[in-house]
C-alpha cells in the first residue's frame, strides 16, 4: 500500500513497485483513508510519506498499525524531517528512505521491510542514537528508560558513519544477521518505550476506562 498526498508521486511509486513485481493493494492520500484501507486489505508493507492531506505520517503509521498490527511501515520522505521521522519510528515504522533514493534502492528497501529487516540510513541512525542519548540525560530517566547496550551503540555509530551491515559484521567479527538484529533491537526498544509511555499517560489521565 502506498500512502502519499502527492498524486503524481503516489502513482510513480505504485508503478515502480508494480513493475518490480510487487502487488500494490491500495493507495491513500491521508491518515483517514490509510486507516480505512489498511483495515480491509491488511497490507504487508506500507510505503508512507510524512506529509499527508489530513495529518502526518506519524499519525498514519499509528492508525495503520492499530487496525493491521502485522503491517510493516517504510517511511519515504521528501525532506529530512528529523523529528517527524524519529516519531514515526517510535510509532512503529521500521524503515526510512529519502525520496531522492533511486528506484532500485526503493524496491530493495520494500523487499527488506517485507522480510522484517530494518531499513536504515546513516541519517536515521544518527537520529536514533541522539534520541537514546537524550533519554539517558533527561532528568526523568530511570530503570524503565530504554538504553542501548554497548554493542548496540557501537553498531549504531557505525551505521551512522556510513558502514554497511556487511562492513560492520567484518569489523566486529559478528554475523551479518547479528548486526541486523542489533539494529532492529534499537528500534524495538524505542517503540516499546513509546507504547509504555502512551499507556501510562492513558492510565494517568483516565483514558483507559
Amino acid at each position, binding site marked *: 500500500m502506498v500512502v502519499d498526498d502527492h498524486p503524481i508521486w503516489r502513482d510513480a511509486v505504485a508503478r515502480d513497485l508494480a513493475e518490480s513485481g510487487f502487488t500494490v493493494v491500495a493507495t491513500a492520500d491521508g491518515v483517514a483513508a490509510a486507516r480505512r484501507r489498511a483495515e480491509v486489505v491488511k497490507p504487508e508493507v506500507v510505503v508512507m510519506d510524512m506529509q499527508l492531506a489530513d495529518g502526518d505520517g506519524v499519525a498514519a503509521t499509528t492508525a495503520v498499525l492499530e487496525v493491521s498490527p502485522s503491517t510493516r511501515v517504510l517511511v519515504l520522505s521528501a525532506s529530512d524531517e*528529523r523529528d517527524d521521522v524519529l516519531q514515526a519510528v517510535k510509532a512503529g515504522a521500521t524503515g526510512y528512505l529519502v525520496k*531522492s533514493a533511486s528506484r532500485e534502492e526503493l524496491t530493495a528497501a520494500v523487499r527488506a521491510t517485507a522480510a522484517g529487516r530494518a531499513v536504515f540510513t*546513516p*541519517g536515521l541512525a544518527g537520529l536514533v542514537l541522539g*534520541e537514546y*542519548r*537524550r533519554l539517558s540525560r533527561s532528568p526523568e530517566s530511570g530503570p524503565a528508560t530504554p538504553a542501548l547496550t554497548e554493542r548496540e551503540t557501537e553498531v549504531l555509530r557505525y551505521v551512522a*558513519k556510513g558502514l554497511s551491515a556487511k562492513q560492520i559484521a567484518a569489523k566486529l567479527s559478528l554475523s551479518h544477521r547479528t548486526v541486523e538484529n542489533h539494529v532492529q533491537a534499537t528500534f524495538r526498544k524505542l517503540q516499546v518505550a513509546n507504547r509504555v509511555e502512551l499507556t501510562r499517560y492513558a492510565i494517568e489521565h483516565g483514558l483507559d476506562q
Partner: protein
Amino acid sequence: MSRDPDATAPLWRAAQLFRLLSCLYALGFQIAINDDLDRPGAAWLLFAVLIAWSIACAIAYLHGFGRRPAWVIAELLVVVALMLSTELVASRSWALDNQTWPTTLWASNATISAALLFGPVGGLPAAVVITAASAFVKGYVSLNFGRNATVIIELALALAVGMAAQTARRAHQDLQRAIRLSAATEERERLSRHVHDGAIQVLALVARRGREIGGAAAELAELAGEQERALRRLVSSAEFAQDTDAADIADLRALLSRRADERVSVSLPATPVLLAPGVVAELDAAVGNALDNVARHAGDGARAFVLCEDLGETVTVTVRDDGVGIAAGRLDEAVRQGRVGVSKAIVGRLAALGGSARLSTEVGEGTEWELSVPRRGECGG
C-alpha cells in the same frame, strides 16, 4: 501606534488616580488654612487654576497626547509657579510654619510625570526643582530630614516611579521582539512546508524519472537533483534556525546540515546541539577542512559521512570517508601531498577549543576524524 501601545500606560493611569487623591488632599488643606491666608480670595482663584490644570493634565495623560516632554515640562512650570504664589497669598511667617501653598503632595505630580516620561534620570532633576521651589518659598534649605522629609520623599518618588517606567518599557520591548521573532518563524515554517510539498517533491520526481529515461533527460535529472538538495538544505536550516536566534548560543546542526550534498551524508540528533557560536563556527570549519581533504585525496567516488553526537559533557563530530585511506608506512608521502598540513589545521582548531582531534586511517578503509569539544557548562543539550 495601536499595534505598539505605550508600555507605561497603566502607570500613567495609576498616576492620575494619585493626582485625584492629591487634589482632594489639597482641597482639604485649602479649606483648613484659608482663613489664615492674607488673601483668601486670590487663593481660591489660584485653587481653581490648580483644579483646571489638574483636569487638563489628567485628560492629556490618560488620552496619551500629554505624554511628551513639552507637556511634562509645562506641568512642572505650572506647579513651580503655583508654589511660588505662596508669597502672594500668605504672609512670610505662615510660609515658614507650613508647607508651600498648593501642598507638597500635589506638587509631587510633576515629579511623577517627569519620572514616568524620562525615567529616573529625568525624574530626579524634576524632584530637585520642586524641592528647590519649596526651599525658595521658605527662604532656607532644611537639612533636618527628620522634621522635613520633602527632599527625601521627592527623590525617592522620582527614583521608584522612574525605574518602574523604565522596567515596563524594557519588558515591553522584549515582548515586542519576541512577538516579531515568533511571527517570522511561523512564516518561515509555513513557507518551508509549502516549498516542501510542491517544489521538492516535483524536483525529486523529475530527477528520478529523468535518470531512468537516460540521455538528455539524465542531464535534466542531474539539474533537478541538485536543486532538490539545495532546497532541502534550505528548508532544514530554516528549521534549525528557529531555536537559535539568541546571540550567545548556536545550534551546531544548523551549520553542519549545510555540509550535506550528493557525496556527503550528515547524521544529526533530533534535538538542538547547543554550543557557544564561536565553538560552533570553529567546529564546522574543522569539519569543512576534513571534507576538503576527502574531496582532494580520498579518490573518485569516495563518499563522506558526518556524524554529530551530543554526549552531554562533550560534543563529538566524526567525519569518515570510504576512500583509499593512508597506509601506515606512507605518511611521508601524505606530508608531501599536503594532507598533513590540513590535518595540522584541524588539530590546531580543536586544541584552541580545548578539545581533541584524532585521525585514524587504514589503507582501503578510508580515513576517519573524530573531533571532540568539551562543553563548558554554559548550557545543557
